[in-house]
């Protein structure tokens, strides 16, 4: 068939990194009980700012930082609107996506096709040449490794530390958390900004490493996949990783299947992540037992501190 499993796996890891980053960030946001539907907007803004900064400064590292900063800035708008001015989270998140798409198109004028400096790999080329394991384990950009470390860190913090316990408590019952004296709004704002930084970094990775170019609306729904992924993973970090690689794998496979002339319609593969997510949602909501418990009980609810 002409499909080499090693290159597919290596490609899927690269393809999955942006959605993994965005999804793990969004997962933390949702764990505090906030639903930010603006992931797509933050990603695409991160992508353009990362790309522009890298082109202008010649430093991919600065590009990544700029991507994170811009995602964070955008998320802060969302945070201020929803947490302090109590606007509707769904509407604000959707608006943020539209705003991010427009803003990124404006900022990126004149940049499509610009040449980028190469991104340095953390491991020597010799290691990446090891058969099979080399391309899979050692052939990636630093950000890819960072994304996996981030999943582990989120898993550890949420499950085993007091900070994580407080985050979960705020997402579970904000009134009770407030009554116990926790700063619900501050905790949520910080989570929102973390989520924004993650989404921005994911976007920057997409433009700087994966595509190495800037195209209008280049995230092409990656932010929505990331959102779906959080639900698919039932708010569990390692399942987010698994889901990201699964969805990324479908994307990577789809390109190669097309190239190999296999006659599965592209549309079917492209929609499969969403179909799977819908199926998972249906299964989760039909099962009224523990599986549904992971969903933060206060997700999307407006918190209004009444004395």
């Amino acid at each position, binding site marked *: 068939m002409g499909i080499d499993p090693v290159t597919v796996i290596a490609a899927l890891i690269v393809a999955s990194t942006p959605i993994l980053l965005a999804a793990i960030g969004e997962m933390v946001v949702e764990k505090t009980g906030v639903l930010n539907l603006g992931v797509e907007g933050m990603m695409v803004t991160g992508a353009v700012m990362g790309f522009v900064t890298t082109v202008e400064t010649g430093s991919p590292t600065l590009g990544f930082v700029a991507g994170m900063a811009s995602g964070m800035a955008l998320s802060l708008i969302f945070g201020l609107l929803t947490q302090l001015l109590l606007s509707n989270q769904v509407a604000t998140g959707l608006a943020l996506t539209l705003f991010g798409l427009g803003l990124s198109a404006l900022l990126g004028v004149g940049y499509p096709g610009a040449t980028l400096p190469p991104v340095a790999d953390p491991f020597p080329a010799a290691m990446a040449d090891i058969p099979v394991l080399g391309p899979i384990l050692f052939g990636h950009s630093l950000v890819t490794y960072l994304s996996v470390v981030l999943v582990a860190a989120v898993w550890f913090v949420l499950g085993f530390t*007091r900070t994580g*316990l*407080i985050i*979960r*408590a705020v997402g*579970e*019952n904000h*009134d*009770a*958390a407030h*009554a*116990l*004296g*926790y700063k619900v709004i501050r905790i949520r704002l910080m989570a929102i900004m973390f989520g924004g930084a993650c989404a921005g970094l994911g976007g920057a990775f997409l433009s700087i490493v994966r595509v190495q170019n800037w195209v209008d609306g280049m995230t092409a729904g990656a932010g929505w996949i990331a959102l779906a992924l959080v639900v698919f993973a039932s708010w569990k970090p390692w399942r987010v990783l698994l889901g990201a690689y699964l969805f990324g794998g479908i994307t990577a496979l789809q390109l190669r299947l097309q190239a190999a002339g296999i006659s599965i319609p592209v549309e079917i593969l492209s929609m499969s992540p969403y179909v799977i997510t819908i199926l998972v949602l249906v299964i989760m909501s039909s099962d*009224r*037992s*523990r599986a*549904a*418990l*992971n969903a933060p*009980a206060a997700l999307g609810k407006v918190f209004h501190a009444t*004395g």
Partner: protein
Amino acid sequence: MSQTALLSIKGITKAYPGVVANSDVSFDILPGEVHALLGENGAGKSTLVKMIYGLVRPDSGTMEMNGTPYTPTEPRAARASGVAMVFQHFSLFEALNVAENISLGMENPPAQRDLARQIREVSEAYGLPLDPDRLVGDLSAGERQRVEIIRCLLQDPKLLVMDEPTSVLTPQEVEILFHTLRKLSSEGTSILYISHKLEEIRALCDEATILRLGKVVGKCTPRDTSAAEMAEMMVGKSLASPARVNADMGEVVLKVAGLSVEPATPFGTPLRHVGIELHAGEVLGIGGVAGNGQDELLAALSGEVTTAPGTVVLNRVPIGDTGPNDRRALGLLCAPEERLGHAAAPDMSLIENALLTARQRKGLDRSGFVDWRATRAYAEEVIQAFDVRTPGPDNAARALSGGNLQKFVIGREILQDPKVLVVNQPTWGVDASAAAAIRQAILDLAGQGAGVIVISQDLDELLEVADNFCALNEGRLSNLRATKGLTMETIGLMLGGAHDMHDLDEEALHADA
């Protein structure tokens, strides 16, 4: 009064837009004293407590702890000063376990393993059994309260504030709680006990401060004061108990048989083979501690949850598989517990809320169009007949006080002339005079020949209005008992799910004889 007060409250005033919650409130709590704060809903008890706990800051006035100024700006500061609080609506997290919940309420929690050990120790020392590893969502209301109490005790408080702690407990659980509180008090911990239940205060408290409309209206020593005197101070007038019109019971209007329902949420309670026979003119009281299937029972009766047709039969018509509108058309009306969001749409006007349940029986629409004039007239009729205090029917349901909205919600159903009315917690969070009016309306309705089911956690209320009583325990309904002659002890055992009720009957008879 030679002892220095632990907490001394001097001239506290707090106003919210449109309402003065506390006006020049002063009192002292001595070390080791159980001090009652007595007042109706809306008397300003909760606001006062929130100030003591640092959740709200007073507009004027001062507090002193052991003679030094005490101005907590947040709960953390209050806890650091030795004030701990058990909330009326538990501040617990259902998806977290007991140890995690307790840890969240502590300043410097130890590692989970040590904490679990401490929880076991304290729970044994005070006779409050609790397993640190269980999910709070799986616990009963009484057990949840233990979580809160143990959370407080682990911090070695000087002052323990308890806000309406017994409203969700069975009489036996209340005894356990009082035992714990007396032990704490004998060890020197002061307790501020907030309640409107007079007998409890007489049984437990050393001193009482009585609040009405935000002002201190009296102080007394509960042991030497009669409940009636305290009630009069609390309400400002003496209350007439509802009068029962003795109507003869007619034939069976509602028959429920073999009703089993799976819960809609992970922490809900399944109903197991519930059977009810309700006669015309009968008031059936269903008691039970919260979370034993009350909401599920109401949903199954109202038609929000459908079952096999024969499980619910209204006047010989099987209706188990029909929805709320069909049941309303046949004369089965319901008033659920949650006023805002279930019984009434909070942001809709009273007119719109009147339409929501009365459309069919009152003919408030014509070929799909709402007859607003008739709807307004109906809303005004309810407001008039049930003395709902509101500027007018155009006001949003949310703007009404709990008692007034409850009167509206109940009145809206009663004026539709139901054959069967099911109400859940009809007077929860309602001030005493509104509660008396609602109970009277329920009795009048039964007197006119309707069957009424009152689901309530307030046992005094059930004893007052119900002809027959049964208890709901873990989704099972106990056998029916005539309310007359029921003792609190028997009821407590019924609520606790004691199965062999016949022996109890015997005992009760002997005790009476």
